[in-house]
């Protein structure tokens, strides 16, 4: 049996959660809420993160973007390469897809209205 300590990043509380792994069985202790429990479990099985960055638009203005869902933490730099290779034209609205399927079926979307 092994134990992993996880600091929850779901909210500013920063709960220190302990995940106990015994073969295929996982139990979670010290979580403050359901989100925290799920986060801690995922941290041990397959940690994921939302990646936020920017894409340069045709006018030169930077458009802030994020992955619409968390991507595998191991994929972060591969995702960044695809975001950095992308461009977009203006205007964009929040939620517009800027880059398709950067990892699995996850899109990169705009997080600001830029005219």
């Amino acid at each position, binding site marked *: 049996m092994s134990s992993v300590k996880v600091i*929850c990043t779901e909210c*500013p509380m*920063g709960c220190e959660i302990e995940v106990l792994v015994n073969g295929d069985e996982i139990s979670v202790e010290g979580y403050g809420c359901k989100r925290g429990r799920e986060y801690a479990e995922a941290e041990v099985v397959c940690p994921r993160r*939302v990646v936020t960055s*920017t894409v340069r638009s045709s006018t030169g203005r930077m458009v802030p973007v994020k992955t619409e869902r968390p991507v595998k933490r191991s994929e972060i730099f591969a995702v960044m390469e695809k975001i950095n290779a992308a461009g977009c034209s203006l205007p964009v609205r929040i939620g517009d897809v800027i880059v398709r399927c950067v990892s699995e079926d996850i899109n990169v979307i705009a997080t600001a209205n830029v005219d």
Partner: protein
Amino acid sequence: MKGNYDLVIIGGGPAGLAAAVAAYDSGVEDILILEREPILGGILNQCIHNGFGLTRFKESLSGPEYAARFISEVEKRSITVLTNTAVLSLDKGKLVTAMNAEEGVFTVQAKAVILAMGCRERSRGALNVAGSRAAGVYSAGTAQKYVNVFGYMPGKRVVILGSGDIGLIMARRMTLEGAKVLAVCEIMPQTSGLKRNIAQCLDDFGIPLYLNHTVTKIEGDERVTGVVVSKVDENRKPIAGTEIHFDCDTVLFSVGLIPENELTKGAGIELSRGTRGAVVTQSRETSESGVFACGNVLQVHDLVDFVSEEAEIAGVSAARYILGGEVKRDAVEVKNGKNILYVCPQLIDKSVGGKVKLFFRVTDTFKAPTVTVRCGNGAVQTKKLKVAVPGEMQSIVLSEETVRGLNGSVEVLVEVDQ
């Protein structure tokens, strides 16, 4: 343009936007927001990372997304906004002098004013770090603007001094964009940033955090070529012989934020030494009646959700002042007790009515402490906390009944049970 408004709000960031909407919905429709940047949203525009709005919207938004929700609320109402407009002064009669390219210098007479100017970063100059004035030294927020708004990288090999949230966020951001972040140095034994930012910005990328360490020398003449980092003793003095050398081309300072109160001082408004913002009642009214303050210009917040909450109090209070006129204060003082860095508000005005939420910061790290609000010799409110650290603002609420019963100044204190 019109020379008078019921309410003038100085600053169109998260505080100014939320205050405007709250005041409008409380019945004051003649509102002017003055913003010095080309667009509304304030600092949120460069905070492209997520994690905003978890308290308020129960979802994790980026800074621009959080701002957009309030900007669209402002746009739905007939609130006048002047961007690219800098406010030069505020006088005692609530006359605001401002300037922009179209109007030149102009004045606006307000019935009430809300101060929402935000804060600025402490600079290298405030720390007296040895070295020449080589290029490559930035405050973390300046680097953030370069990367996220202008789209270029300030450097390739980076050392960050201070573990404030902006520094941690920039450690991750510059790493994602291909820079090597060699170290984050913190002079204190604990970080000043949120725990989740240590986890997701440093630990995720293997960036080392040096607690009890500071930058003692910045090397290089034209461009930074390296830094010397030293361990410090319990008095925060560098210890000889503990020097570590890093080859780097960039140093970021993330060493604290200071409320931007030049206009407040100019108007002769009383400031608090604890918060470095105005002394206010729970209505967020300053020592000048009809002038309110909210957001980071009042106290530096960790979370924008609380800025919005505070700004709404200021907006509602300003509307009440405009529509109902000045009410004579019946205020008691709120004092910093044991282990308390500051409490905001510093005054409780019993004529206002309603409950009062006191925000405070502690001086050190405390495990499972009890917060007590004392009036005279008796405790009027207590609260148990799991943990209290200086980097995370705490709060305690006094009920309407408790507030009514206060017969003198109150003191907030934090103690750990023996």
